[in-house]
């Protein structure tokens, strides 16, 4: 198996509070992992730490991506190495048009790889095609990034960016929240289309419905800063039925 991501005993704090308390996780190329867990468990924190958000401090542990020490890289280099985060709450950036933003982003990736800028003539064609994949209105291209976008449009825009940047590891943080039923299917299809033997996806979600479309190989439960349970896709169905109490109980008994 081609190992893409390896997290070992990862601890992280913010404002003096320990949020990640020893995460262990391995993701191979070609796999889809789901991470579920109650509110406040640390799921978004894990994605923030992986993508290089500086207001979290890693106090212990290590993260390897394609054999490189990820924690040594600044956020932009992690993205250029192939990590992509679909934000739980995408940020509005006034005055920066979506199309210019994407052009800059893609060319920064290419520069990092030593490639010339994306041929100007083909760029728009590629963009249009990817927009269709995720069912996003081309009018959004010239609008300011995420500004005034509806909740669903913001989420679609995240997956659209993912389609353009073609990451090796995509982390989807509650991409399903805010999407209507049709949009959910379209977006999930978009994600599936990007799936390949070389890349992997981590899907953070509270609901089974997204996992019905993006079928996970492994499901993890993140609780209180740790991964406390790992199983196959049937775990998601079980969690949907029963909630987290039984896991909490098991943990209490085990201690």
């Amino acid at each position, binding site marked *: 198996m081609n190992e893409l991501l390896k997290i070992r005993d990862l601890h992280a704090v913010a404002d003096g509070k320990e949020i990640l308390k020893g995460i262990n996780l391995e993701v191979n190329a070609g796999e889809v992992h789901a991470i579920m867990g109650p509110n406040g468990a640390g799921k978004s924190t894990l994605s923030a730490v992986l993508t290089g*958000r500086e207001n979290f401090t890693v106090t212990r542990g290590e993260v390897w991506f394609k054999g490189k020490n990820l924690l040594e890289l600044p956020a*932009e280099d992690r993205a250029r190495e192939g990590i992509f985060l679909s934000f739980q709450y995408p*940020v509005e950036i*006034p*005055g920066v048009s979506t199309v210019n*933003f994407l052009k800059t982003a893609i060319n920064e990736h290419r520069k990092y790889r030593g490639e010339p800028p994306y041929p100007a003539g083909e760029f728009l064609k590629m963009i249009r095609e990817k927009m269709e994949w995720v069912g996003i209105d081309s009018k959004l291209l010239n609008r*300011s990034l995420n500004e005034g976008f509806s909740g669903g449009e913001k989420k679609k825009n995240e997956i659209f960016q993912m389609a353009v940047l073609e990451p090796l590891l995509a982390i989807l943080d509650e991409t399903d929240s805010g999407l209507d039923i049709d949009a959910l299917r379209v977006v999930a299809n978009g994600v599936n289309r990007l799936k390949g033997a070389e890349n992997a996806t981590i899907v953070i979600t509270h609901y089974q419905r997204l996992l019905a479309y993006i079928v996970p190989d492994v499901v993890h439960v993140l609780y209180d800063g740790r991964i406390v349970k790992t199983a196959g896709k049937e775990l998601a169905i079980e969690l949907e039925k029963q909630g987290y109490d039984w896991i909490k109980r098991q943990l209490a008994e085990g201690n």
Partner: protein
Amino acid sequence: MRREKINTDFTTLFHEGRELLRSRSHERIDRHREEAFRRFLQLGGVPDNSEEYKHADLLPVFDRDYRVTLHPPRQEVDPNTLFTCNVSELDTHVLLTVNGWFGNKEEVLELPGGIVICGLAVAATRYPSLLEAHYNRHVAAGERDGLVALNTAFAQDGIFVHVPAGAVMEKPLQVVNLMRGNANLMAFQRNLVIVGKGARATILVCDHTLSDHSFLSNSATEMAVGDNASLEYYHVQNQHIEASQINSLFVTQGRDARFDANIITLYGGFIRNNLFVSLTGEGGECNLHGIYLSDKKQRVDNFTAIDHIAPRCRSHEHFKGVLDDAAVATFTGRVTVRPNAQKTEAYQANHNLLLTDTARVNTRPQLVIDADDVKCSHGATVGQLNEEAMFYLRSRGIGEAEARLMMMFGFAHEIVGRVRLVPLREQLDDLIEKRLRGELTKCYNCVLHCKKF
């Protein structure tokens, strides 16, 4: 002491130049000088600690050796060869002023609909009734401003625009104000713009410096926007760091009249913009927008005073600035709502980005509201770039420096995006991007070679 000396010098200049001024300018302009100069002195001369000029620090601006020429400059060169407009796709009627004087003294531009554009000095004889009705009639809002009085005391020429009732100016008028000389120079330009009932016009003013001397331009512009008329005004300020300018704009709007201003401050040493707007007729609308990009020791001071006199008028102000190095910006947003001005809507915002610890911003909303049925709001922010947005861009692979730039550009574009002249908007976006990248000095597109600062 220094201030007294400056005021004494003006007094001497006024008395010694009085005969010359009288002989050179028409009585319709000249008759206001004594009263104006008296007011200048009464108000204490160059403003010191007045409420209006609180943070302006005018003394260093005035305390230099300037030459004041009461004669028009000798026309050893055709002013039209001095400047080529860099907004190449923008189709405009271009007129120049040099050191405050109308470029081609006798030229009168006549456009369809009876539109006339010429020098103010020429207009004083050619259009007596318009001058009687409007010259120095719109400045009441600035009666406590000594610098406006000083302009009235010395000004002889500038631009005159008349757009008669119902006329539409198809192409924008572009006024290019040039400063050039072989010594430090002070100029007093005076403009008058009359847009009649139901008429429409667009004016673009560009300021440039063509030699590297210290310049001080103290100009005043009166604009009358008649009932149902509309005037779009753009001012692109791009001078060098030794140049100082004080621009006082007085706008009187009639019923259902609309006035849009966009003040784009790209460069200059000291820039003070006074924008006085009187909404005298019901249903008037005024939109004032401004963007300033300042670095080094530049000072930009926008003073706005909107007077809601009539009911049901709307005013909207948004000024934004990016401040680097030790630049200082001031914004004053004075809004007066008179007792009679019910159903007023007045919104105001001033947002600033500080890139260093040494840049400073003074932002002062001043709302005086004497009517009860009004909607008013004001807001100001002074801050750094949004950290979450920075991370968002970086998480897409955009490097930190580029991400900063994109955000600053986006910040500025919120104002520039309102420019309705598309080629101008594109040019401004381009200039601002270059400016933010540090690729641009004030010498950009100057046709004369000058020292880089």
